[in-house]
């Protein structure tokens, strides 16, 4: 992409200009951070998050020793990379299991984010690990949402509970719990309808569903292509529902996925999985903070240099 090419060549130039060795000066850091800011914005990290991040890293970087094999500019990028990786949450975290089964997991998010697909992938992975999941079809709004869940349920060989579209989702999930008990299911995965975070009625509905079934996990599904608005979405879903983890979908595309950093920052919740395809026959992938950090920075050349240093 033109923007990115322009960016990396101007970055090279900025980095090349800084040749003094020894400690990082105010000036070294200033120049490199300007380029880092552009990279983060081009990756859709929220402007405010970028501003705070840049300020903090700048402060931390000034006065640090420059490694022999790096230029000051590269040293700054190294610090940025480490900070980003750290921010996105060190070790990967798994799904929490309830002390007394079934473990209930609700997936929530905007329309088209990838909830239903992620449910099927999770179900497959649980089944492969000797669990007995049940899928509950609580999207009564989107045309053919229940059909979709049935098709996917068949593909991953996991049963689906539905009550059609004429009951309200709170009743559906309550009945789904009873069905889980009857079947001896130890995991219940609830597919909710996509909704806007500003849709008061539908957000209340989610709160009611949550209250009715007390899920162990409320996972927010976020599309990797999301732009600046991710901050509002994450804030509201987290405030209303107490999100416990994030699934970043559609990372098999060429989006740089900076929204993930925003969502991570805003909710403080770990990114638990990433979605890397439409097909449900491969389970969700665990999340690697370092990979996403380098993707967000989009400075592959510089980063591989740094890794070797």
């Amino acid at each position, binding site marked *: 992409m033109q*923007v990115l090419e322009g960016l990396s060549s101007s970055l090279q130039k900025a980095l090349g200009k800084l040749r003094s060795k020894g400690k990082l000066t105010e000036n070294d850091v200033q120049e490199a951070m300007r380029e880092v800011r552009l990279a983060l914005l081009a990756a859709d990290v*929220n402007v405010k998050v970028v501003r705070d991040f840049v300020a903090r890293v700048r402060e931390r970087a000034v006065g640090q020793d420059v490694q022999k094999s790096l230029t000051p500019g590269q040293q700054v990028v190294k610090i940025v990379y480490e900070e980003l990786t750290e921010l996105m949450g060190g070790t990967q975290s798994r799904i929490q299991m309830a002390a007394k089964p079934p473990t209930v997991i609700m997936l929530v998010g905007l329309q*088209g984010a990838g909830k239903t697909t992620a449910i099927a992938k999770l179900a497959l992975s649980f089944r492969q690990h000797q669990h007995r999941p049940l899928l509950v079809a609580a999207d009564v709004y*989107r045309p053919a949402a229940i059909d979709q869940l049935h098709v996917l349920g068949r593909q991953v060989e996991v049963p689906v509970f539905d009550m059609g579209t004429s009951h309200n989702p709170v009743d559906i999930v309550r009945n789904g719990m009873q069905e889980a008990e009857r079947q001896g299911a130890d995991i219940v995965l609830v597919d909710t309808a996509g909704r806007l975070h500003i849709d008061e009625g539908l957000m209340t509905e989610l709160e009611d569903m949550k209250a009715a079934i007390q899920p162990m996990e409320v996972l927010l599904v976020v599309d990797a292509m*999301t*732009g600046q608005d991710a901050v509002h979405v994450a804030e509201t879903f987290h405030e209303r529902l107490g999100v416990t983890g994030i699934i970043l979908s559609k990372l098999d595309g060429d989006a740089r996925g900076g*929204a993930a950093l925003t969502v991570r920052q805003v909710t403080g919740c770990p990114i638990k999985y990433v979605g890397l395809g439409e097909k449900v026959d491969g389970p969700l992938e665990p999340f690697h903070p370092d990979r996403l950090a380098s993707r967000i920075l989009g400075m592959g050349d510089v980063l591989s240099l740094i890794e070797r240093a």
Partner: protein
Amino acid sequence: MGLFDRFKKGLQKSRSSLVERLGGIFKSRKLDESVYEEMEEAFIAADMGVETALALVDEVRALAKRNRIENAEDLPPLMVEAMRHILEETPSEMNWAKEGPTLVLVVGVNGAGKTTSIGKLAHHYLEDGKRVLLAAADTFRAAAIEQLLAWGERAGCDVVRHSQGADPAAVIFDAIQAGKARNVDIILCDTAGRLQNKSHLMAELAKIHKVAMRELPGAPHEVLLVLDGTTGQNGLSQAKVFKEVVDVTGIIVTKLDGTAKGGIVLPIVHEQGIPVKWIGLGEQMDDLQPFDAQAFAEAVCRP
């Protein structure tokens, strides 16, 4: 409530919406460099990207100078003007076949709102007294055909379909034959969502496009790219690649009933020269509106 009011209302609900921000930024302030810096940040926060944000700020600055403006409060109309200039570079009317059915191919990445937008377009043209036919050429995604059938039923028109897994080009072929035989005015073709970096899926789309060109003179008369309004900078890559592969003629921006501003369309229109033709503002049949550059720019940035 008109649709654009709904758009504006959505924007206002966002806690730090551009609208609010600008109101705060500009109130009783002298025009100095800090105003322009904050304006740049506000444009970036609306997903316009750094380059376009800077270009817009420059244009506002020039307009302010020309109009001898001294108070920041007087800037918003200039911002609207600057945005409108970009958005009006290309005309946004739909293109119709001179005779016989008009074929509209609807494309885009996964989950953008293609199928829903087709349902809305069908409703729009049926209301307009047109004969409409839908083609279910997403044969990949689970229950995509059932979803389109539900929309056909809601809107009140027929759907040409094969079974899941069938060749989508064959569906288009059949839809064109049926459309000609039944003398319909417009055929709206749903396609499977695909990410633009998947070359095999893009090649499949090129094949669908070719079949349409071969079977119906002048077709496809429109290739509409559906763009999720919450999309960030990746929207540019979507527009660029889809345009290369199937010569996109227009954009439908969806989900503008939320707090996202859809600012990514500005760099797209500017760099790719693809006009925005429709905007989607909800999940119901009548939540679709022809694009209006002035209203859009106002909704995005009037304080």
